[in-house]
């Protein structure tokens, strides 16, 4: 079972995240696992490749809201960079940020998979 200690070791600001969930640790852990089910991560990468920056921005903006509210710092950093560049519809190489986001997500998934998924 995923614990707050696991998430702390992952680099999440767990105290902040749990506090934001009104101190409800169970809710926080449930939402952390839920965020990984979001198809937006895959679609974001695809839309960036297709240079559909309008759609990519919408997705990035939404995901940023979710991961920053959960204080998942390793994911928050790359998604913030992506969101701000996409907001300005910057023509640049996004691959490093996309890769960093994927990696952060993969690490979290691994962490969860080594534990028993609650949902």
């Amino acid at each position, binding site marked *: 079972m995923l614990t707050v200690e696991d998430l702390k070791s992952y680099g999440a600001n767990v105290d902040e995240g749990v*506090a*934001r*969930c009104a*101190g409800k640790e169970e*809710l926080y852990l449930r939402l952390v696992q839920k965020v990984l089910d979001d198809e937006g991560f895959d679609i974001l990468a695809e839309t960036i490749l297709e240079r559909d920056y309008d759609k990519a921005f*919408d997705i990035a903006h939404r995901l940023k809201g*979710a991961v920053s*509210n*959960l204080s998942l710092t390793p994911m928050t950093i790359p998604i913030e960079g992506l969101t701000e560049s996409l907001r300005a519809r910057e023509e640049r190489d996004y691959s490093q940020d996309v890769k960093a986001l994927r990696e952060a997500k993969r690490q979290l998934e691994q962490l969860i998979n080594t534990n028993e998924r609650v949902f």
Partner: protein
Amino acid sequence: MGDQNIYLSNIKRSVLVVDDEFINREILGGILEDSYEVLYAEDGQKALQVIEEQGPLLSLVLLDLRMPNMDGFEVMKQMQQDVVFKNIPIIVLTSDESAEIESLKMGAADFIKKPYDMPEKIMARVKRIIALYEDRMIIQSTEKDELTGLLSKSYFFEYASLQDRFHPNRSMDALTVNVSHFHLYNELYGVQEGNEVLKIIAKEMEKFANAHEGIACRSEGDNFYLYVAHQAGYEVFLDDVIAAITGDTTVHNTQIRIGINSEVDKSESLEMSFERARMAGDSIRESQKEKIAFYDAKMRQQRMFEETLIRNIVDAIINGEILVWYQPKYNVEEDTPRLVGAEALVRWNHPKYGMLSPGRFVSLFEENGLIQVMDEYIWGQAAAQVKTWKEKFGVTIPISVNVSRIDIMDEHIVETICNIADSAGIDRKDLHLEITESAYASDTENLVDIVAQFQKEGFVIEMDDFGSGYSSLNMLTVLPIDVLKVDMRFMTNLMEDEKSLRMMELIKEIADFLNVPMIAEGVEEKEQMDILKKMGYQMIQGYYFSKPVPKEEFENFIKG
């Protein structure tokens, strides 16, 4: 919450969270759910659906701006355009500071930044905005009644309606409380003692209201309102009030009158609920014995009756239940009375209530404007009847129809009646328009103008119920009138009462001065007719000749 919201402090309000991101919705829900009823929507369209369903029951919308299908700006725009929804406060959820100004312009009350602040801050903001808006809704002037400290009437109604919004299923009683003959108290006991009585009543009412999930106010003078959760009886409350007055003042034998509308019908306005309680209270105004009266089955039955009529009127016209009957008018200047016209009078042959005379429904329809629908139908029938009788008997029987002051408020009234007469193919002078004298009392200028237009268009104007007390002699000179009608039923016992006789003479003199003929209606006996004839009245209408009859029967008068 604001101080004045103590009456509502225990109510769990509804808050709508609108965000396309599930995680964000859940976090806000987690923060708010202990104190609020939390509803969710994942885009603007769904948000509007929930807002539509909840209406004013919704205390706050927490609104994300960037969403698929419909964004937050569009939601705000649509809410602003609705009279009810624009009063629901909105807190915008945004990570984008540049959106704040536009949101404010569109009516947002506050912001919550993403990532969210700590829950305490969010809760404080939510609570503050709801209190702020509710206080604003509960009228600007938060006055209380100075003498008694109870709520003022308008404040009371605001609170009562808020209570109903939050507790739609709670059964409530509306009460009016009065002191019988209070106007004598100041003379008998002095102003100070009179005020003391009012303060004691107020104190007892507040005590009772607090104990029974209710509120109280002094509406005016010695009239109080109480809105409380339904109770089986109020005898103990009444005894407590009287005991308190007797114990604390020199006033004895105080008579308190309570009118109760028990378990009010919440589909009606609160004002109407209290009006019904007042009706109940008024019904025992003169009684020495009864102190408490319920808005009862009889009163309720009258209301049901009225509602049925309102619901049925249009179908009744279509189904031919609305009957036009005719009462003859005779010229009595010569020895043998001569038929000179008829007045069209309505009857309603109601399938449930039987034959109804106009007294049962005309004033009801005047109140809600339905009189126009019915009157137009009658005018059309009457105009067609003039034509039919002319074709059938070769004589013209002018028919007079009533035109209500409500009809006259319609800006197209002249056009409507012209069309009715013209399309029936009759001469306009054969459709007489009876306008009640009392109609001239309100908005004189407009009425005189409209009546003058009718006259110009060729109609004969009869002033109905003349002498019932509204016209000044001065006004008579400017009124466009062709005939004056006086209703004998306003005269008490014409044969024995000197004053009534003198009045009839005076009215005839006025008519002579104005050079218009007179019709006396409501004439029932030969003696009456003889007196009126002697006074010089030219035309008589009334039971002496005939009651109003169906058109077939009226034809006997034409045939002579």
